[in-house]
């Protein structure tokens, strides 16, 4: 199985902006790690580097100890927007994620996934005919058709309403239980992090780096209405407060109002 190691990762853009500094994250096989932070703390940069869409200025990303130099067949991604290809039907959009799979098997998986995401019979429709939530379901199916060892999620549910978001959380967890990819999910939503993750990494901005990592010990399936859930949620909120306190102490002047309430 597959371990993702992010080791000493740094990114300074050409204009001198330091987006990330000395990031260390280790995600064990099949683990869900949530990267939690406000805007401008380099979460998306971290995910882009891991996906191989940008090159790091420092440090390495390694799968099972082997550094990767760009996009990697074991790594798949769901973006903030569905990013479906509008000229492909829903079925073909899902198939797009599985170019390495033999065609008959790919067709079979497309059918399976359409059913799993509740869009059986939508295979021949165009993306424009789907709602935002349905499109994001298709994006998840596209990311999982190749059975990736590592799945990256970049605030994938932030544009959706609370009901749709909750149902997509359930869907994601169901598919995760089945395929067991290692998941790195970037979010600014405390509830999302606590509900999904085995571990939460709280980030701190300017430059983006790890402030604190905590394990979420809640048993699955998780019930949001238990007091344990509430306590965990408060612990995460406290960690965020601490990260902001550091920020205030260093005088950056940002983050004085918690954006997570």
């Amino acid at each position: 199985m597959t371990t993702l190691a992010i080791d000493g990762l740094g990114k300074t853009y050409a204009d001198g902006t330091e987006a990330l500094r000395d990031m260390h994250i280790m995600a064990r096989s099949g683990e869900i790690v949530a990267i939690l932070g406000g805007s401008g703390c380099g979460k998306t940069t971290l995910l882009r580097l891991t996906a191989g869409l940008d090159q790091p200025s420092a440090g390495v990303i390694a799968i099972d100890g082997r550094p990767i130099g760009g996009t990697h067949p074991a790594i798949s991604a769901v973006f903030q927007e569905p990013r479906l290809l509008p000229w492909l039907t829903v079925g073909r959009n899902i198939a797009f994620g599985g170019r390495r799979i033999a065609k008959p098997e790919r067709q079979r998986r497309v059918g399976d996934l359409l059913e799993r995401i509740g869009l059986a019979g939508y295979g021949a429709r165009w993306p424009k005919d789907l709602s935002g939530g349905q499109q994001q379901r298709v994006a998840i199916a596209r990311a999982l058709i190749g059975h990736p060892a590592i799945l990256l999620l970049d605030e994938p549910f932030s544009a959706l309403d609370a009901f749709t978001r909750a149902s997509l959380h359930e869907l994601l967890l169901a598919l995760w239980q089945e395929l067991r990819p290692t998941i790195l999910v970037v979010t600014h939503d405390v509830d999302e992090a606590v509900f999904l993750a085995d571990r939460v990494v709280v980030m701190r901005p300017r430059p983006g780096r790890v402030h604190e990592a905590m394990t979420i010990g809640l048993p699955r399936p998780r019930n949001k209405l238990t007091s344990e859930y509430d306590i965990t949620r408060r612990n995460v909120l406290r960690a965020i407060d601490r990260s902001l306190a550091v920020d205030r102490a260093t005088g950056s002047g940002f983050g004085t109002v918690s954006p997570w309430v």
Partner: protein
Amino acid sequence: MNWGNLRGWLTALAVPVALGVAWEVAVRTGIAPGRLMPPPSRLAHTAGALAASGELQTHVAATMTRVAIGFGIGAFAGTVIGMVTGASETARRLLDPSIQALRAIPSIAWVPIFILWLGIFETSKLALIALGVFFPVYLGMLSAIQGVDRKLVEVGRVFGFSGIGIMLRITWPAVLPTWIASLRSGLGLGFMFVVAAELMGASEGLGYLLLDGQQMGRADSILVAMIVFALLGKASDGVLVALTRPLLRWQDTVRSRL
């Protein structure tokens, strides 16, 4: 055809039909002379005579052949060069300024030099038409490639495509709508320039029919040639739209409505 569509047609035809009938009546009753502005019946008669003698078909065939070849050359060159300059920053810096400079020359201004270089016969005519078609197609292709959504290119990269794969699976389908729109405006310009080309000296073609009508004082054959031009232009555009419609089924907006 549904009812709303039919009503649209009838509404659109009301004004030209009314004017035609009024003019017919005016000429027949002797209120207006019909020599320089012949009435519809006279135009129909002239068109019938031209068609019966086979003359009209010869002219149409000559004009359409010129448009087809000139459009083919211009559209092909515009597509390929637009692709190259769109895809490569170096090629763009190298070529685009010169092409933009050439575009600043009104295309008709090329006529004398084309005649000197290529002679008075077919080659210079085709060159003029191709030149007219080239610019809109080139510009359309260049801007379409530059406008391809970076986010979709990233999707291609994440799922293991690169180079040619991205080109074929992301860039090409993404530029299709703009490219087809630019082909349509290129075709329109092709018809514009075939007239200019045929006016500069031809022994057949609808442009020749125009010039001949002017020299012989035959307003009716001029008007027939003009009407045939309009019909051919519209029909060619319709064919282009019909041929490309299957490629654009996925689009949100129905841009291809005639």
